[in-house]
């Protein structure tokens, strides 16, 4: 393992130091990192599918996949191979080109989403996660663009197109209904998700995912607690992000998009063979990536104590453990929570999460300013509480008046 040595230089410029002057070595390292992450994503997705099936089985008191490989761990691989041998159908009424394009629009953003996630490196003692590979300093992160957080939002928005066009081009009613539902759901929760991310940006002061992790690696309150985003933002944006991310991923309890009882399979009803497999891959890959985004934004990414041995390896270990917590959480949600009704879903997104996250950003900014300007924190707190209460009352009145606009069903005598 002499390949990777933890560097000590602190990066003055923003961005991955590897890519300030790009030469053949740099390109080689980039391609290497991309290949590693690509393989990791595929394996992690396969693992996630198996993990979900196995864990759900345990929670439902049955065995689950147990024949392919030890503990059935190769079941996903077997399913994937089977998909290659299945007939690939295009419905007569489909818009052929869009129908073929849609799976690509779904899974390419899923791959791209992971590139901005820092997945390893030593962040202790001002190391900033720099490692040296073949004599070049770099981050254990595929890319560190200065707009990393915006890139995450952009890619998760692009995924809407895949589902929307898949449903529309199928020329069949269930996929169309599913895709319209999905678009409305995803854009609704994207707003709440974006606002929750802004709360993290407020506390870390940077849009680069690497800088966000570096900020969280510092010492937190009292020197005991970690300086993680979940604590910096006082918890609420984290909860909003959990709900919004679950909805964004169309996972239970927000999986109205593929509510079997109503819509057969949702937007991919007409898809078969490898085209369906690509949608399926994208869905579970997004689950893994979203867990990684959670860790990056709220749980300090790969930052953690080094117990023994090389620091960069502990970064990877901490990262994997933290991601695992969220993978478990998503499966647990599925096993526990019943599906929401569509109006409840929309009400939760628009009437609760968006106003709350907007207010929370202003609260965080006000508290920070109060500290800067030496204002009385107690007075600021009281003022914020009053503003929150007034806004909540106003919103409540609006919701009541909105409900009154629903048309009334006539009852014959």
């Amino acid at each position, binding site marked *: 393992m002499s390949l990777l040595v933890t560097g000590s230089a602190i990066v003055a410029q923003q*961005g991955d130091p590897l*890519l*300030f002057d*790009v030469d053949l070595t740099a390109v080689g390292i*980039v391609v290497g990192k*991309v290949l590693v992450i690509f393989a990791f994503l595929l394996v992690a997705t396969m693992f996630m599918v198996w993990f979900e099936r196995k864990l759900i089985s345990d929670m439902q008191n049955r065995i689950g996949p147990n024949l392919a490989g030890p503990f059935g761990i190769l079941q996903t691989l077997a399913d994937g191979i089977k*998909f*290659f*041998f299945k007939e*690939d*159908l295009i419905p007569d009424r489909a818009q052929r080109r869009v129908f073929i394009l849609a799976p*690509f629009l779904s*899974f*390419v953003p899923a*791959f*791209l989403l992971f*590139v901005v996630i820092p997945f390893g490196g030593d962040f202790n003692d001002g190391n900033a996660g720099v490692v040296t590979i073949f004599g070049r300093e770099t981050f254990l992160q*595929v*890319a560190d*663009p200065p707009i990393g*957080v*915006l890139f995450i939002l952009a890619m998760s928005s692009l995924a809407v197109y895949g589902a929307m066009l898949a449903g529309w081009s199928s020329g*069949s*009613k*269930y996929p169309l209904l599913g895709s319209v539902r999905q678009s*409305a759901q995803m*854009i609704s929760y*994207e*707003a709440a998700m*974006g*606002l929750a991310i*802004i*709360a993290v*940006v*407020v506390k870390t*002061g940077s*849009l680069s995912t690497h800088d966000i992790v570096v900020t969280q690696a510092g010492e937190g309150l009292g020197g005991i607690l970690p300086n993680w985003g979940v604590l910096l933002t006082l918890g609420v944006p984290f909860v909003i992000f959990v709900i919004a991310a679950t909805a964004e991923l169309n996972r239970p309890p927000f999986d109205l998009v593929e509510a079997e009882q109503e819509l057969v399979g949702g937007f991919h*009803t007409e898809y078969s063979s*490898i085209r369906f*497999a690509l949608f399926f891959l994208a869905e579970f890959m997004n689950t893994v990536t979203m867990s990684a985004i959670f860790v990056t934004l709220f749980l300090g990414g790969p930052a953690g104590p080094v117990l023994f041995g090389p620091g960069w390896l502990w970064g990877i270990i901490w990262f994997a453990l933290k991601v695992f917590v969220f993978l478990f959480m998503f499966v647990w949600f599925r096993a526990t929570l019943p599906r929401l009704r569509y109006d409840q879903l*929309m009400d939760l997104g*628009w*009437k609760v999460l968006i*106003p709350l996250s*907007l207010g929370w*950003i*202003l609260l965080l*900014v006000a508290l*920070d*300013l109060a500290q*800067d300007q030496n204002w009385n924190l107690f007075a600021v707190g009281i003022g914020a509480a009053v503003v929150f209460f007034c806004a909540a009352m106003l919103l409540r009145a*609006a919701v009541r008046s*909105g*409900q009154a606009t*629903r*048309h009334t*069903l*006539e*009852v*014959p005598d």
Partner: protein
Amino acid sequence: MGLGQYLPIFVMLVLALVFGAMSRVASHILAPRLSTVAKTDPYECGIDASQEPPERFPVTFYLVAMIFIVFDIEIIFMFPYAAVFSDLGVFGFVAVAIFAFALFESFVYLIGNGAMEWGPARKAKPEALVSPERTAATTIRRVGTEGRPAAAATVADRTPVPTEAA
């Protein structure tokens, strides 16, 4: 800085596209082609498709998309502010607070006008529509009004009522 930081994203994009293309080619070679009319018909659980897919949707879906644009633009405005808010001080906070107020006010107006009302239609007399008891012949409770007399919870009402058609 430069565009070098975006190089890995491009490499990943190419790799993902190659992966997708390879899967398609593999499927093309390996998969059988035995297409029949039944297979390429729109899937409707085994029934012949009788209707075209709907072209009209509840207007609320369109409203969601339009209101989303408002919030998306708001988010775009908030990101730069969030990154540099400590440099802007009180002035920046007041400006953003006014912006947020203007946004919230119009949001309240939309909600108050029922732009986000997805719920089922309000029923005038729910108790007249649904009888808590079961009907005589089946275990299905009487629900709804279309084509049937209002269900009342009396025993006399549950005897078969001769309809006008009969």
